């Protein structure tokens, strides 16, 4: 690299970046933040879109996977059509479609579409009323932590009691009630912990509130709709793998349909579902790098794009980026393997 006069080392990490990023989850300013900070901004944006995408894709995927097995002809066919359509069209094409064909033609900020509850939709994204933590909201934080701990405790007690006695005691419901009541009481005693700001048109753009940029929206839509098609197939295969006799036996024992699903079908299906599901989560995370095509400031776009261009440290930056995704893949695979081991059949 010396022979090519390329920058060596990682000195660029502490240099001032000198460019701005539209969506930054941690404070970022062109004049003072470093390329290192830009890296973390990109990484957090990647994690954000991956986390949201995984939740949405899982919900939609399970819904469609179950719908595909429905006895209802129309529902089953529609779900099948969804799966075939979304998994046979390249993701990049879908992203460009959502971004350029659907979100772009939305009206300009001054002609925004007004949605209920003060939300606004225009070609700069969706602006929602935004919650901000009020000053002195620590009692609420405390209450939340306490409520979660108590709720979890009750749930575990309920589980143990059912295991021992066979009866569901409704302790879980008590836990839930407590988890809700505690923060509510705190809010009444100390005043609301959050104040909400409404989006307002000021100059060129809406300010205040919570803006979801069209790049994030398009990426989220594309990733979750695409991955949901694959998850649906995994869920279908998982459910089909549970032998019919299992359901019939459970029904013969007198279990109601919900309990059959909860205690017989789902635990067995999950064993088949989890390994390929892990793969899909990883794929979704890796596919989020397609952000570069639509300008969402994820790790690849910010770090392997802007930072690479400005510093010229191509080799270092590409390898760091690859390293990060590799690390995410390895950690996820490890975590999922552990869970999978817990869920697996314990044979004697």
């Amino acid at each position: 690299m010396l022979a090519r006069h390329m920058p060596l080392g990682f000195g660029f990490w502490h240099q001032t970046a000198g460019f701005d990023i539209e969506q930054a989850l941690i404070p970022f300013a062109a004049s003072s933040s470093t390329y290192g900070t830009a890296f973390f901004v990109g990484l957090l944006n990647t994690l954000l879109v991956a986390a949201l995408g995984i939740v949405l894709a899982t919900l939609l995927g399970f819904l469609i996977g179950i719908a595909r097995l429905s006895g209802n002809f129309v529902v089953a066919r529609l779900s099948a059509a969804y799966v075939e359509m979304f998994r046979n069209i390249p993701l990049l094409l879908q992203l460009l479609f959502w971004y350029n064909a659907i979100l772009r033609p939305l009206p300009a900020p001054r002609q925004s579409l007004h949605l209920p509850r003060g939300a606004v939709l225009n070609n700069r994204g969706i602006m929602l009323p935004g919650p901000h933590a009020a000053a002195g909201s620590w009692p609420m934080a405390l209450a939340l932590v306490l409520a979660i701990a108590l709720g979890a405790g009750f749930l575990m007690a309920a589980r143990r009691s059912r295991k021992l006695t066979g009866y569901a005691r409704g302790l879980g419901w008590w836990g839930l009630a407590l988890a809700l009541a505690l923060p509510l009481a705190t809010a009444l005693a100390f005043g609301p912990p959050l104040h909400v700001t409404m989006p307002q048109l000021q100059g060129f753009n809406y300010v205040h509130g919570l803006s979801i940029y069209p790049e994030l929206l398009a990426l989220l839509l594309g990733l979750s709709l695409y991955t949901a098609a694959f998850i649906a197939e995994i869920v279908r295969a998982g459910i089909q793998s549970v032998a019919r006799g299992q359901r019939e036996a459970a029904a013969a024992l007198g279990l109601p349909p919900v309990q059959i699903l909860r205690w017989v079908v789902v635990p067995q299906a999950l064993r088949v579902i989890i390994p390929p599901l892990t793969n899909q989560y990883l794929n979704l995370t890796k596919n989020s790098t397609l952000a570069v095509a639509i300008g969402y400031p994820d790790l690849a776009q910010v770090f392997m794009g802007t930072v690479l261009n400005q510093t010229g440290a191509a080799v270092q930056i590409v390898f760091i980026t690859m390293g990060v995704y590799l690390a995410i893949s390895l950690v996820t695979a490890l975590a999922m393997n552990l869970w999978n081991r817990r869920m697996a059949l314990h044979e004697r």
Partner: protein
Amino acid sequence: MNADVSRFVARDMAPARSPPVAAAGLWRWLRHNLFQNAASTFLTLTGLGFIALLAPPLWRFLVSDAVWHGGPSACVAASGACWTFIAQKLPFLTYGSYPEAQRWRVDVVVLAGFALIVWLLSPRLAHRNLAAGLFFVAFPVAALVLLHGAPALGLATIDTSLWGGIFVTLLLGLSGIVFSLPLGTALALARRSKLPLIRFAAALFIETVRGVPFITVLFLANFMLPLFVPVTWEPDRLLRPMIGTALFGAAYMAEVVRGGLQALPRGQTEAARALGLSPWASLRRVVLPQALTIVIPGIVNSFIGLFKDTTLVSIVGIFDFLGAAEAARADPKWQGPSIATTGYIFAALFYFCCCYAMSRWSQGLERRLRHGPET
């Protein structure tokens, strides 16, 4: 077992259900599939409502309001798809800037490639070894000569910067499978090697490539490759993503092939060796033919993924089909509200047809293979 098992079992008999509705013919089908109970009826109606809501605007956009003839001016205010845009840009979308008089060369290469793939992957056709030889050795050389040109043979040289469109997409797909299948097989064998160093190196390569996004591999190929090879090689701008695609595909292919190798009973190798076949011969004559046949559906699925992934090369500046469609869209002569959507729908149809056809074929193969090998 626990003596208190009675606790876990229902104490009351389940209520008797009403007998199934007796009906026949269409009525029975409707009853069973659409209106079995209140919930089912509700779902049916919601589904039908959904279709009723979606179909008319779709029909209007795609057919009745669409512009089928005319030049750029016809689409300026079109509320429907601008099909004339596709018709006018079709040569560009298919061949890129490849000189018009030479386009037959592209047609020949693509058709030959597909004929060979079908021959290779159809368990029913004979002489598949010959097909493999042709496809993996003769075809790439012939394709390179024909496409790039050989002045000695009277074929003008056509620079790769002029290549583009569907042709480049198919080329990337073809080269992907031509190089990733042998490479993947080699990696799979290496991963099962008895030598720890080889095993480790293969596993490292496979897991690293599978753990990173394709785009980073493309970046690596695009920016780094020229830095790490002698200047005189000057890897071509199209060759770099091809190498990236092949390496990426190989890592995934390796795992598919490894599955096939693992599924093969040990006895096969042992029997082959007992018959006095050399390790190489037993591999080539006994193990690989069987292992690869088992995983043909997996190979096809892996290839579908690779084919869809080739769209990413447009991000590193290659005019594949999607890249060409984006470039056509940027033409200032064609300004209309529906140009972008039309381009994407056309591209989507192309990819859908290719991928759906392949996946149906692979499903069919899977069913046939499950019923035992045909001889």
